[in-house]
């Protein structure tokens, strides 16, 4: 271990740090301002989700659970928007809910934006159930009776006999559920929802938790996953409707390259120093 550095050294470090901050800012800002198009092949897991949604017949219900808050918005907002656009494009009946009180606002924004684009009507073409506490208890409850768990939707309309919920009495009647989550909600949906009531479960999540989902992908408990902003961009590409996420990919590339260069440079220097130390003995 090296002996602790002097104040001067620390000051130098502080300066280098600010230079790096500047570099990052540039690496993000420049591509954001420029409008370079970038093409890429959607990842297979995203394609699986898309195909699944595509395979649903018009008018069939699809449950979307937006279990995230503004902290994860920048990643999951585009994803949710793309998903809902897809649902409305194929005239599915999305049923939107959230387990997070702080997620209600975003969910509302997203679904109302998507619905406005296609002139879809709440209660007729889609349902926004809003938020209820209870986490896995809520899921189990919906598994017994959806109208029992949410007797009114977010706009205070009774869900009993709502046209958009035609033939949906519980989770058992829903072919596909997609959970957009920033936390452990996906595992909750797998354990308490998918494994008991047998619907297909797709996931969209922040990049941070994407790697944790692969066991479920390989065991078939998840049909597919959209990982982070890239996942959203993949979906937009599949939907042929590029938007925020796709535009973000350039900045993503440049910043990643910058960080990679930083890591490599620093380590090369570090290793060479260590080699030198060995050489001296």
């Amino acid at each position, binding site marked *: 271990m090296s002996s602790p550095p002097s104040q001067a050294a620390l000051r130098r470090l502080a300066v280098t740090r600010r230079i790096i901050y500047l570099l990052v800012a540039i690496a993000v800002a420049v591509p*954001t301002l420029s409008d370079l198009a970038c093409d890429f092949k959607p990842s297979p897991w995203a394609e699986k989700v898309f195909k699944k949604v595509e395979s649903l017949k018009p008018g069939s219900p699809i449950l979307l659970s937006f279990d995230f808050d503004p902290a994860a918005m920048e990643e999951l907002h585009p994803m949710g928007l793309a998903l809902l656009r897809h649902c409305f494009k194929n005239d599915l009946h999305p049923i939107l809910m959230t387990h997070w009180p702080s997620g209600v606002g975003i969910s509302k924004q997203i679904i109302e934006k998507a619905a406005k684009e296609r002139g879809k009507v709440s209660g007729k073409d889609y349902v926004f159930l809003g938020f209820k*506490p209870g986490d896995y208890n809520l899921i189990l409850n919906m598994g017994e009776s959806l109208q029992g768990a949410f007797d009114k939707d977010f706009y205070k309309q009774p869900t009993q006999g709502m046209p958009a919920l035609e033939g949906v009495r519980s989770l058992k009647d829903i072919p596909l559920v997609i959970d957009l989550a920033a936390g452990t909600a996906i595992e909750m949906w797998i354990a*308490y929802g998918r494994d008991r009531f047998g619907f297909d479960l797709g996931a969209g999540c922040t*990049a941070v938790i994407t*790697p944790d989902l692969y066991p479920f992908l390989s065991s078939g408990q998840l049909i597919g996953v959209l990982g982070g902003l890239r996942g959203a961009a993949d979906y937009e590409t599949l939907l042929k409707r590029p938007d925020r996420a796709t*535009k973000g990919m350039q900045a993503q590339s440049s910043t990643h390259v910058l960080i990679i260069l930083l890591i490599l440079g620093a380590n090369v220097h570090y290793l060479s120093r260590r080699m030198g130390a060995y050489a001296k003995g």
Partner: protein
Amino acid sequence: MAAPQETTSRSRRTVELVVLAVLFVAFAGASAAGKRPANAPDDWWVTRLGVVIAAGLTLIMYSFLYRDNPLFKMAENLFVGVALGYGVILTWRQSLKPEIIDPLFIDPPHLHAFWMELARRSAPIVLGALLLTRISRRAGWLSRYSYTLMVGWGAGLSIPITIHTYVLQQLKPSLGLVSKVLGDAPAGQQASFWSTALPVLGDLIILAGIVSVLFYFFFSVEHKGAGSFVSQLGIWFLMVSFGASFGNTVMGRVSLLIGRMRFLLHDWLGLGP
């Protein structure tokens, strides 16, 4: 992270204040520059004001990059407060009102229905109220009656469900690992050599990974001899997977930054495509 040199001389302070003032002026100017689009709704300015304030808060949050500062602390606490208020109101709107007020006092068309509802809901309402006693120090023990019920339910339920989801469901594919490839490879697939060998290789890697990592977290035997090798293998696997998580974490954070940058440049300043 806060800059090391917390020891800030007076002169430095004044410099910072000046810079701050300049920045503020710049900010105000930039915000004022946003022009009113034609045929905008008459509550346009409300939105615009919102965007300006949001931009200001965003910039204040970023000021943490320079150093932890009062403005940052204010903004942080402010949004904690707003989030809290939001939670309170939503819990009322979406949970307590529809679960307690409406079904008891609004919906029932006649008295009998009211009594039936009361009978159905009194128990959870009472238990819920008991939860509130947790606030008090003396009556706090009452809340245990509710807590133990909830926790007990959760615990009892979670045992078989965990076995189902995390043990059985995960074990089954792991058992079929190599044989799945060899066994009933549908005719037409098993032609080329590599189309068999590579998946088999991959499966073996998975197998080694699972076992070695499990063994690394196995504390009842000393990791000696072969054991030490296996646990070493486990560490390596762990590291590779942590690397994957690492890369994804970076990716996620960068995405957030991109989003905010878009907000600042497009929505606030109206720059770019």
